[in-house]
């Protein structure tokens, strides 16, 4: 053990994806919860809301290929357990567990057992179509079990390269998720004449914040002024917010930095991550709006994808 210990590239790949999939499962659950909440607290048709939920999860095309109409039940079932949906909650949890199995020797018993249990419980809960009245229980059970995996990881894994790859997977996925929510909903954050003076009661703003588990956090952080600019700042640049782009990229820099120190080699991926971090640090939110919010988000999504590919190359995930 120690500095001389070697780690397979495939193992790094497995850990990275195990944690990406877990994070994705959790994010999808949160999107469903948000969609459902908006649907229940708002009168009239919710079709456009569900469309944007599906779009955010990146599963709208798949849904439309399999369904004639966009309904709430259909959307929820598709996101939870759609057979042909590789990003469905059931599929991502199964994929996380599959990766965990393939790197069984890299994770502690606690992490494996928490993952296996999450898989078994999610499997039971989603064996049949989930009834609306069971939905809150099912969603919170899944969230709780993915949180248990994270807790076991935090509490029992050695802080070495294995842990770094697990964290890198988590934060790439999380940053990507936040960026995609912003990408789909950026227009509700654009300054417009009608929205001036509106409060946080704006359903769209609430939806954005809830999708990243930041509804209460935002209120705590912003007592006085609450507008689209503050929300955008919170989700993009605020380093207190654990799902903001700046926070996630900061964590990616940390973990890539630990790898560089551990391996005594500064990989190109670290340079890419640092470049992103510099961009976040060099601008305030006014600068972001001046550049164009949508363009800025698009750039973030592309940069994250580039970073992901560079990590795969740097650490020899594939032959």
């Amino acid at each position, binding site marked *: *053990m120690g500095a001389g210990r*070697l780690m*397979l*590239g*495939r193992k790094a790949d497995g850990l990275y994806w195990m944690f990406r999939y877990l994070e994705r499962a959790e994010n999808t659950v949160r999107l469903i919860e948000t969609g459902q909440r908006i649907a229940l607290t708002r009168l009239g048709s919710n079709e456009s809301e569900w469309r944007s939920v599906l779009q955010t999860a990146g599963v709208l095309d798949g849904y439309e290929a399999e369904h004639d109409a966009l309904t709430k039940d259909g959307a929820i079932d598709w996101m939870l357990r759609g057979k042909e949906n590789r990003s469905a909650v059931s599929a991502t949890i199964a994929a996380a567990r599959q990766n965990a199995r393939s790197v*069984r020797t890299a994770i502690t018993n606690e992490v494996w*057992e928490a993952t*296996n249990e999450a898989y078994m419980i999610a499997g039971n809960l989603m064996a049949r179509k989930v009834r609306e009245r069971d939905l809150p229980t099912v969603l919170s059970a899944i969230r709780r079990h993915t949180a248990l995996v994270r807790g076991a990881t935090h509490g029992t894994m050695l802080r070495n390269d294995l842990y770094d790859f697990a964290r890198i997977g988590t934060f790439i996925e999380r940053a990507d998720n936040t960026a995609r929510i912003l990408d789909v909903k950026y227009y509700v954050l654009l300054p417009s004449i009608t929205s001036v003076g509106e409060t946080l009661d704006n359903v769209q703003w609430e939806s954005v914040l809830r999708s990243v588990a930041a509804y209460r956090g935002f209120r705590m952080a912003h007592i006085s002024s609450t507008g689209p600019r503050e929300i955008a700042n919170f989700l993009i640049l605020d380093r207190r917010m654990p799902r903001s782009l700046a926070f996630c990229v900061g964590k990616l820099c940390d973990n890539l930095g630990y790898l560089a120190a551990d391996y005594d*080699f500064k990989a190109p991926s670290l340079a890419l991550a640092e470049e992103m971090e510099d961009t976040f640090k060099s601008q305030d939110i006014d600068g972001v709006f001046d550049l164009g919010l949508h363009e800025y988000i698009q750039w973030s999504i592309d940069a994250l994808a580039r970073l992901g590919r560079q990590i795969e190359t740097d650490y*020899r995930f594939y032959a």
Partner: protein
Amino acid sequence: MTEDQTFDEMWGHDCRLRTPYEGFKSWFDEEDPRHLRAKQREAEELFRLTGITFNVYGREEAEERLIPFDIIPRVISGNEWQKLCRGITQRVLAINAFLHDIYHRQEILRASRIPHEMISRNEAFLPQMMGVDPPGRIYTHIVGVDLVRTGPGEFFVLEDNARTPSGVSYMLENRETMLQMFPELFSRNRVQPVQNYPDDLRRSLIASAPAVADDQPTLAVMTPGIFNSAYFEHAFLADKMGAELVEGHDLRVVDGRVAMRTTRGYRPVDVLYRRVDDDFLDPLNFNPESQLGVPGIMDVYRAGGITLANAPGTGIADDKAIYSYMPEIVEFYTGERPILNNVPTWRCSEPEALAHVLDHLSELVVKEVHGSGGYGMLIGPASSKKELASFRDKLKARPANYIAQPTLSLSTVPILTQKGLSPRHVDLRPFALVSPLGLKIVPGGLTRVALKKGSLVVNSSQGGGTKDTWVLED
């Protein structure tokens, strides 16, 4: 054959409690059966949670299943065990001597103790191994010897597993589960520990490193992958030994060494505990279709650049056709009479034997020479007329493909059922480790139990279960 003739390891032939079971019995009598059945379910839940599963072949999706675990331990006295160990040691040493001979001067063939064609026409014989000297002259680093019992002192070797014997993880996890659930049982009985097995395995593999290795040899376990039926065990052993678990596509020949792709580039592996069959090991030297192997690994091996455990070509020693020659093999290389008996075996390749087998088919067990896992075998007494007739045709068509043995009255051991203890047939697979350090047998092994009443098939793929196996400190 009536049930009365069956030897029960707890009650003997005559319903008198046997000594090794005294400690267990006094504990059991104080227990509430309902409580024990609850414990049984708890054990199952524990296994499911820890993911101790095996995959079943021949299904659309490689489904993960649990091997049923029975909480009633199987108890062997220290005295009985010592005798078994002597027999296993003798047999394993003979197997290694036989393998070295077969891949070198073939004295045993020159002495006409085994017919030439048994080797030259055998698929398990690898010409690529001729003249190769494995480090320490060791071919089988790990051997599992399958034993059955018919009476107090009567053990028979059912088969040798000299390629990639599996099941040791169940031995270890079964004990772990029992220790967790019934600590008081272990305070009362002096049970010899099995927990050192992974350390012993690591030590003996490292001791078998090739000369090119430095003083800290790199050890890796090679698995066919996550869909293999024994994947859990591969991961389990790699984990316990602190070795890397690799698949074929993690490895490549670099500068005359077998190297694994790490996050820091390719690094050489010195000892590979491979759980991949010979045929799939190297697409350049063996099956060109193999996706599981490493092109050129055999060339590195032949040049002394890596230790493969077990060595390629060891299958020639555990082949079912060779099995019938084991008494001759033991005598030829050790100069002693075999301590452990073989089950009498008819080689259907011999016309007289075939005639006998065809005449007595309904009394015999017939096995495929290359089969394993209990597939493709016929249990005469348990088969219908139609099954017997169709098997008769197969036998006549390819006699050399089969051997036949009498149906032994396998011993029974109690399992826990709804109605309390009930006897079931068992076998035993102890594990022996061979290295330049010597030969070591872990005190215990894998007990497989046919859970169906009266059944003789203990294979996990056919509804068998497992038990914790105790060897007492006498």
